């Protein structure tokens, strides 16, 4: 595909998207113009720099984390702790809250703000226990018919000895399986780093959204560079090659919509970022709530089973 073709393709997708019920709120909130601006930016987006800018913003130390959003977008909130087996994993928080009058169950990765909290929360890298906790609250959502919302923000699942011994791979697989079984509406949003298995473990949703400057990828740019370029310093090159930014994820059919951020990025205005995120989540739930549970599950599985490009 030439750059020109690529642009045409994306313009078509974006204009199509703006007609979807999902983006009704976006239109109402004047996000259509934002998408236009995104499109403009895309023309320059073939540069390594533009993609790298997303990588940097996605990891920005002032970027809002899950609990920053929870405090702003939910009216009531009770955090639920523990996997009922071994631990309470601070890298993945779960709870029950009220979103615009609707009770929802929420799970999200949580990075730490200061040094101590970062260590306590393992930089948002969950152990298997974190995914077990997420599965527990998914079952709670299913039992009482509460929509399930996940906020994804992790460099990846924790790469440690105990995490392996406790079954990191199996936990990630089973968390996805659990999500694929739910009959309640599910919405995931990548709000920062959507890193590999640790991210997708809680992102098998009816609607998968990404914030404008979030990234979603199979490996960190540094990890990819270390393996393919044999030099972790080539991270920019790797990112440019595997294209973890929201527009490319949308283009590849991996996500269902992009959530706008404040002009300078979510880190610059938490309140505004939260307002935009809340509107997108509410729109997605509005769209999903009329669909019967079995049909939701059928469509969700069909969507993920359709992902990939092969000859």
């Amino acid at each position, binding site marked *: 595909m030439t750059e020109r073709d690529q642009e045409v393709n994306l313009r078509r997708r974006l204009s199509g998207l703006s007609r979807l019920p999902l983006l009704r709120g976006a239109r109402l909130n004047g996000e259509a113009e934002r998408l236009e601006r995104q499109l403009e930016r895309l023309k320059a987006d073939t540069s390594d720099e533009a993609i790298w800018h997303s990588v940097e913003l996605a990891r920005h130390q002032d970027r809002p984390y899950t609990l920053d959003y929870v405090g702003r977008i939910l009216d009531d909130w009770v955090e639920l702790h523990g996997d009922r087996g071994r631990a309470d994993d601070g890298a993945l928080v779960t709870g029950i809250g009220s979103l615009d009058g609707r009770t929802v169950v929420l799970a999200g990765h949580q990075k730490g703000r200061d040094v101590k909290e970062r260590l306590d929360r393992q930089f948002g890298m969950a152990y298997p226990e974190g995914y077990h906790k997420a599965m527990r609250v998914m079952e709670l959502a299913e039992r009482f018919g509460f929509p399930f919302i996940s906020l994804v923000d992790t460099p990846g699942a924790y790469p440690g*000895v105990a995490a392996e011994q406790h079954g990191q791979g199996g936990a990630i*697989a089973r968390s996805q399986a659990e999500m694929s079984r739910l009959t309640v509406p599910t919405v995931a949003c990548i709000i920062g780093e959507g890193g590999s*298995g640790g991210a997708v473990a809680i992102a098998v949703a009816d609607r998968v959204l990404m914030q404008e400057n979030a990234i979603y990828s199979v490996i960190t740019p540094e990890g990819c560079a270390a393996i393919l370029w044999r030099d972790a310093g080539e991270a920019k090159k790797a990112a440019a090659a595997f294209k973890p930014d929201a527009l490319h994820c949308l283009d*590849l059919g991996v996500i269902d919509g992009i959530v706008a951020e404040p002009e300078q990025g979510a880190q610059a205005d938490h309140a505004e970022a939260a307002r935009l995120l809340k509107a997108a989540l509410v729109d997605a739930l509005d769209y999903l709530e009329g669909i019967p549970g079995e049909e939701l599950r059928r469509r969700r599985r069909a969507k993920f*089973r359709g992902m990939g490009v092969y000859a």
Partner: protein
Amino acid sequence: MTPPPETRIDVQVEHKDAPAPAGKKHPNTCPKCGSHYRDDELAAALWVCGQCGHHFPMRARDRISWYADAGSFTEEAADVRSDDPLAFFDLRPYAERLSEAELNTGLGEAIVIGQASLDAHPVELAVMDFSFMGGSMGSAVGEKFSRACDSAIEQGVPLLAVTSSGGARMQEGILSLMQLPKTVCAVEDLHDARIPMIVVMAHPTTAGVLASFASLGDVTIAEPGALIAFTGPRVVQQTTREKLPDDFGLAEQNFRFGHVDEIVPRPGQREHLSRLLRLFDGGQR
């Protein structure tokens, strides 16, 4: 059973935790005890070292010839090939790596699927091959595994999956990650149809494959000494500086920690699988 067209394992750079490539050594030299074997000797012994029991990698077609009753295997989806949606280029273009892998292995992708019978039990097979780009899972592998699930449902027969993979194929970027939920959803569709899946984890079963369909078997057996880890030992050590236990990530450790049902050396596998298929055939529903 025909000897494999090419027993050298192309580890490439795709799999970071596989044993180091044999280098100058003859590929039929046992890395554990140093014994040497002729190709036909090794093939006759199911690629198991007669001296120390080390399990050499086994090619997908060899395993199928061994598991499947003679003449019973009918391959499916043989024409599914990887595409290059990102026009990915690292030190070499992805398209070139793909062509080379096909040339070297005689396979269209890192998994072979099809219908067969094992000891007269009809079964759907999905067998991975590490020699094709480290058994990495891209869109084509995900699609073929999913089709194996659908074929098992259609036939009403169990799915037998053999895994050997370095993980997701990063040359397909985010689409390779999406093969995790894709294959998971395929297994869930299988389970909704009350069709069992038996998984045999061969060396290595790691990262994206372990974190998706490989972990969802109704019964899971592992080959001795197989590395079974989401994150391999090298990355764990580099990232956390933790001291690793001697058997870190090996099948034996996974068994001790409750992640696999049994470690079954190759000589006993066929009988073990046959017994399982017989049992799954005896349900009341």
